[in-house]
């Protein structure tokens, strides 16, 4: 049995010191673990970039990943994009109507979609649909010694497994984002104009006045970072999977949860950066009213 690491006297100050030491030790453990994981992910990412820039990935490894990320994710991203556009119209309509500004609905819906909801939604769907699957596949490969088998036959697992997934996520998430934006715009237009009866020409005109190319660009720009994050977090979780079905399940869950948290945290940082760029170019900004 392990000895008590804090064998203080039974006095009240002694117990207080004991408890305090345990709390500090527990938090210290969490900090050390966090820093170790951060260092590990950084090293993993660095190795991935080294392999990506020094050795061309094989077509046979690229194509299945491009297909899974780009083609198979498209329907679900399109569908959720449409729903989000419609929900935005439902949520905002009464507020805008109460001040007689319902024609501005298009501007709000489309701006929210292209700058924020399109990229975040596409990234969330990708993290859920592809990220967890990547962690589960790589985790199963780790547990069943398939990664060891790759190494034993002279293939580098980072080059063979991680680089193609990273490229697929990073290069194809902009297309998924544009699809989410487009279908959201269609959904919002459908509900606002066809169901709520807002004037078609005014709806489009206000959207055109308010939403510009930079807004579309900023959404797509952010999505590239989201895609890269999903691939790195998911592959890292898969590579460091614990043995057994429980280990694979945990890796898949951790891949989604951590990717999602990272996406939202990155979103804040990237928005601050992009706002800085926007106001540097257009100091007065766009006016909704």
């Amino acid at each position, binding site marked *: 049995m392990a000895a008590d690491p804090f064998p203080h006297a039974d006095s009240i100050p002694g117990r207080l010191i004991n408890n305090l030491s345990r709390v500090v030790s527990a938090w210290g453990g969490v900090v050390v673990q966090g820093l170790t994981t951060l260092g590990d992910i950084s090293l993993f990412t660095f190795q991935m970039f080294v392999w990506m820039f020094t050795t061309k990935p094989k077509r046979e490894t690229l194509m299945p990943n491009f297909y899974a990320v780009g083609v198979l994710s498209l329907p679900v991203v399109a569908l959720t994009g449409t729903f989000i556009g419609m929900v935005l119209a439902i949520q905002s309509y009464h507020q805008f109507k109460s001040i007689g500004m319902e024609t501005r609905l298009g501007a709000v819906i489309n701006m929210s979609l292209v700058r924020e909801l399109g990229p975040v939604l596409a990234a969330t769907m990708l993290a859920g649909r592809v990220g967890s699957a990547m962690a589960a596949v790589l985790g199963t490969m780790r547990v069943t010694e398939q990664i060891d088998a790759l190494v034993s036959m*002279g293939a580098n697992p980072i080059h063979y497994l991680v680089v193609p997934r990273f490229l697929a996520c990073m290069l194809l998430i902009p297309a998924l984002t544009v699809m989410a934006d487009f279908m959201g715009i269609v959904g919002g237009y459908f509900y606002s104009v066809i169901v709520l009866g807002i004037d078609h020409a005014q709806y489009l005109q206000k959207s055109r006045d308010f939403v510009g190319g930079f807004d579309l660009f900023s959404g797509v720009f952010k999505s590239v970072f989201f895609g890269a994050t999903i691939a790195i977090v998911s592959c890292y979780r898969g590579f460091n999977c614990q043995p057994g079905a429980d280990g694979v399940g945990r890796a898949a869950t951790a891949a989604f949860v951590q990717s999602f948290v990272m996406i939202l945290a990155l979103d804040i940082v990237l928005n601050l950066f992009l706002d800085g760029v926007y106001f540097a170019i257009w100091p007065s900004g766009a006016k909704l009213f």
Partner: protein
Amino acid sequence: MDDTIIEQIVAPISKSSSPIVETVALSLKFGRQVVLKDISIQIPKGETVAIIGESGCGKTMLLKTLVGLVTPSAGKVIFDGQDIHTLNDREMTRLRKRFGFVFQNAALFDSMTINQNVGFPLRQHGVPRGRQAERMILDGLAEVGLPSDVALKKPSQLSGGMRKRVGLARALILQPDLLLYDEPTTGLDPIMSDVINELMLRTQKRYPVTSIIVTHDMHSARRVADRIIMLYPYSRLKPGESQILFDGPPDLLDTTQDRRVKQFVRGEAGERLMEMLTSRGHGDLETPNLHDSIAKKVTLEE
């Protein structure tokens, strides 16, 4: 002979004097857990060595360390005169062409068909391509007794024995100098186990390969190996003892005096169950209250 005396018998059967693979004071630790400590083995070219020992004694880790899948905490692994853990990635990749590894559960790639699995080393090392490669894959499958119609199936469509044979075909396709088998007969029926033994023997006869077989299966070890090495878990050794309890030809296993070797070879539990229970605080096996206390614990947990 006293149990504490370590039985070290120099292998009389050596097909060649120069070792193809050698470990020098090899140690492996995971955190504070010592898995291997000061293992020094020399394996001459063309020899077939079986590494036996109970689960958790570090034999699979030793096998993985020999081909660079696991980095040792201390010591060296020398393959054909080169310390493999000092090689860079490119040199190691070149060297891996000379290794063939048969994994415990075959470790076939689920996403690939059987012919893609068997042809993976050919594609990876760029030799040969096209029709010649296809021919080699089909020949490789035929060598292990698999019909050509399995070539387009996925690993999940095959039985355990067939998967093991595909794993063997994949390991053999580049005709490696060193073949490593990790529990090749585990989980197979007796007939299929003997088929695998027979395939290992046929491979040895076909070309001068050096084989290292990690196994629990004493029948298999006696049948295919020229030399047997028994490892013992480091945590259960007496101070100063070597982890290698036996190193010699299979015939000498029957005359060994070491109680632990005899127990393993005969498959006798001896005092092991009592040791296990004692180490978990259940040393009262012989007391009738044990079953009651376990039953109470189960009831409380329910």
